[in-house]
């Protein structure tokens, strides 16, 4: 099972944090910090594996990928294949790339909700849901359409709408 997905920048600022076994918010931040401390000390051109048991407890593995200013980190247990997890990071990033056309950190910062939607179509309750980025894109676009339809309604000036409701 996948325990957590984290995206953070090279300064250690979290850009996405999803924990598939519940962690209180302070613990989440502590875990992100610990991971970042180790990641930032790793050189380029080394393996994508990092010792995780001292941070996440026994039976935890961690793979990460470094893209420009971002780290993508997956934490999981021994029931998953390490390299397959690494591939899944690649699928996640490729899908984001399709979404935003050459994704950069700013896209992710300002489209936090979209990134969350993409992730939810790839990983579901800590399990791999979909591995084809084409399929993921289809699902995400469907959701976007539904959202856009609802946004259109709000083009009615909000002031009037709320004024109506209050009366």
């Amino acid at each position: 099972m996948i325990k957590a997905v984290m995206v953070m920048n090279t300064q250690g600022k979290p850009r996405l944090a999803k924990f598939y076994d519940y962690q209180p918010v302070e613990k989440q931040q502590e875990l992100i910090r610990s991971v970042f401390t180790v990641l930032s000390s790793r050189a380029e051109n080394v393996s994508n594996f990092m010792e995780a048991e001292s941070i996440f407890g026994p039976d935890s593995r961690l793979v990460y990928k470094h893209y420009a200013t971002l780290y993508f980190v997956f934490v999981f247990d021994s029931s998953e294949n390490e390299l397959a997890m690494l591939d899944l990071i690649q699928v996640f990033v490729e899908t984001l790339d399709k979404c935003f056309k050459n994704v950069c950190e700013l896209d992710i910062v300002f489209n936090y909700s979209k990134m969350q939607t993409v992730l939810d179509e790839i990983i579901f309750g800590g399990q791999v849901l979909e591995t084809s980025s084409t399929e993921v894109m289809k699902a995400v676009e469907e959701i976007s359409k539904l959202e856009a339809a609802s946004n259109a309604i709000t083009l009615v000036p909000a002031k009037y709408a709320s004024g109506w409701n209050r009366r």
Partner: protein
Amino acid sequence: MALSGMRGLSVFISDIRNCQNKEQERLRVDKELGNIRTRFKNEKGLTPYEKKKYVWKMLYIYMLGYDVDFGHMEAVSLISAPKYPEKQVGYIVTACLLNENHDFLRLAINTVRNDIIGRNETFQCLALTMVGNIGGREFAESLAPDVQKLLISSSCRPLVRKKAALCLLRLYRKNPDVVNVDGWADRMAQLLDERDLGVLTSSMSLLVALVSNHHETYWSCLPKCVKILERLARNQDVPQEYTYYGIPSPWLQVKTMRALQYFPVIEDPNTRRSLFEVLQRILMGTDVVKNVNKNNASHAVLFEALSLVMHLDAEKEMMSQCVALLGKFIAVREPNIRYLGLENMTRMLMVTDVQDIIKRHQAQIITSLKDPDISIRRRALDLLYGMCDVSNAKDIVEELLQYLSTSDFTMREELSLKAAILAEKFAPDLSWYVDVILQLIDKAGDFVSDDIWFRVVQFVTNNEDLQPYAAVKAREYLDKPAIHETMVKVSAYLLGEYSHLLARRPGCSPKDIFSIIHEKLPTVSTSTIPILLSTYAKILMHTQPPDLELQNQIWAIFQKYESCIDAEIQQRAVEYFALSRKGPALADILAEMPKFPERQSALIKKAEDIETDTAEQSAIKLRAQQQPSNALVVTDQRPPNGTPPPVGSLSLVKVPSMSGNSDYNVVDQGVNQTNGTLSKTDSQPPSADLLGDLLGPLAIEGPPGAVHSEQTAVSGVEGVPSAADAAAIVPLEEQTNSVQPIGNIAERFHALCLKDSGVLYEDPHIQIGVKAEWRAHQGRLVLFLGNKNTSPLVSVHALILSPSHLKMELALVPDTIPPRAQVQCPLEVTNLRPSRDIAVLDFSYTFGTSVVNNKLRLPAVMNKLLQPIQLTAEEFFPQWRSLSGPPLKLQEVVRGVRPLPLMEMANLFNSFRVMVLPGLDPNPNNLVASTTFYSESTRAMLCLVRVETDPADRTQLRMTVASGDPTLTFELKEFIKEQLVNIPGASRGPAAPAPAPPKGPAIPPDDPAALLAGLL
């Protein structure tokens, strides 16, 4: 740059980004939270768009690390909104902010169900995603059938069905009963005929979870898995979108091979042959290529294939082919593949007959110790450690020693421990062992724990041939200009004991030895000075005829320390001074240390505790079984010198001012004390265990009476380090802790038998809480060790004494608990077969100078493995009749029952999860109940109970218990009997020691529990 389409959110994110520091950020966040809170209060004024905007802001704030503790109710209520945007927001925020135990969730179950059974696919997806992420037990019970329907429905789109598969997996994890094992197996097999690879991938994950618990039920899925693998490996009918860098869905290939690893054997020769063909194709057809992503994907498949080959226990030829492949991998340029190559080689060690092939790669593995990547270096170290045996120990250990000087600080401790263990286990000769340990101390003294030098002292003491050699070596190290303090300790100790064996060599006269050791005294800490004083006393004794000058020098030192502020130093100075004035009597008292009794190496034990990598751990265990320790130690239980000490007098401990009379006492105690005092080198012993190692002789030599009287006297004197001795040598029943528990340990245990979380133990220093989760025959207990003090608790040790029917694995318990901190230690429990025996937690810690040791019963009791089951009369009676007579059905008349009204008895049964079925028995004085028991040997097994009471005499009843397993029937009958007869609080269970009645102030038991609940 694309924008989210929510302007307010973008503005807020920009604001946060523009914050100069954390303080500004906090102010901005607080302002926003205040704003959202006000807006939520007049909820009617919010448009769907606004709600959505605010909720995304909340999630963003939550991700930044701020607690969002409001709006939960609003979020949950949005789920029932009729329109997509509000519903979507409701589901997303609920899944992010709430956990499965949140009370509000329960309110939403019906709405969620309506969305799942409704026709709107987008709503179905939203609902499934939420349940799949945070659905708990209650969701499992009420939603599982509907989710199953979606999964097997032919009219649903793959998008919905793949989510349904994983949602069902979540529900199954929460309650295994929701997947009806018998009926489901066929459906599961049908699901594997699916053509859509997305649905198939999800279904495969579900299958993996199911077969990991019940492989025998899913036999029919095995050939289908092989078919899927063939389809993928031959790239037949794989759509373009599922081909990843030219490889047909590597994830599905990997998952399928994972599923196959849960079937113990593949009997059908045709299936086996097809599978081996596919595996062979994968093994042969994978090359290292330039594209990193392609490489990763193809090797993901390849490494999984290797695991499967190992699991299938293939012919030797195929295995050597695998090792050859791995040998190739550990030398490639691609670091990920080097890493996995080493890791898989370590796993491979467990397979018989390949060790020799692996040894051929030793040189390459040693090179990996110098890899630029620490992850790879760690794997190399693990592998070297695992593959070490008598034949290559010298090479490997010497490599490790060499590497020690250049290795990272983070690895040094592990490295030195591993080197020490290998040296001890596989030493071709003992002088080499001494060399290794001394080099270890010399090169990495800071990382050499006390266990390591204690152990070398023990070896030297027990092996006479080794003594002159060790003394020479120690003498050589003392010539070095700057040596580590641990080296001072070990050299001083060894020279004190054995330097007289060298007396004729140049530079080894007592005077020389004394002055070279004494030179170090100004540089050492107070924990080392007592050792030096002992060494001086020993040198003095060995100087025959006495050398007056040396004697005066040493006496002057003793006198100087007679007023030392450190009690340990002062005591030794006073004693040695008095003793050394006894003249020849000194020789009897300060004679050579007796041999230590052989015991399990504390080092190896420690290493096993440290190991967390499961594969590695089993490698160690395997080794431990294969290689009996070749420690060449003879146990000599007779005291080699002097007579046993007289019973009683303990004036020594109090360190009185030295006057003529108490002098006499001191001398009499000498024989006993030399050993004891010398061993207690640290005023704060690192661990009770370890002390036990060095204190061994004391425990054995003294007649039981002597030991006891000493120990009772000791516990009377507060804060005397010898309390540790008591813990180490006193048998279970007689443990005397100076620290009294708060509350009644037995009552706490009994309360925990009926609930899943609460306080197990508490005293003024520590609180131990337990939180348990039970699923079928497995349980996960988390021990919460909370330090209540403002100073750390050290030498924390926890050992599980588990009865044979429970397999228990306790995670690493840290040696030290920082002040006011709480550490969590998960404990995994697997129940192998029915039994009422109870596991015990042997727990100890040191606070200040007192060692506290407790044996606590763990609430991993039989009723935790029961799951109530509701049966109708039509289901109950055929079962009842089919189980006819002993040993499956046992009847007993129980007398001396605690008199209970029938209603209360029914409650009692329900409280330990045996479900009373009202109205099933026509006689109103009888009770009929049913439950399911889980263990590895019995699987889920139905148990039926009938109790016939006598309204005229409530103290007796007739009980009949039936199940499909004779042991289970018997154990359950005895268990229920205990519940009926016993008064809560009385001890029960053969493995459980009777806990001491509490002497501390009694606090109502629910009080600390409430406190703990707050902590959790």
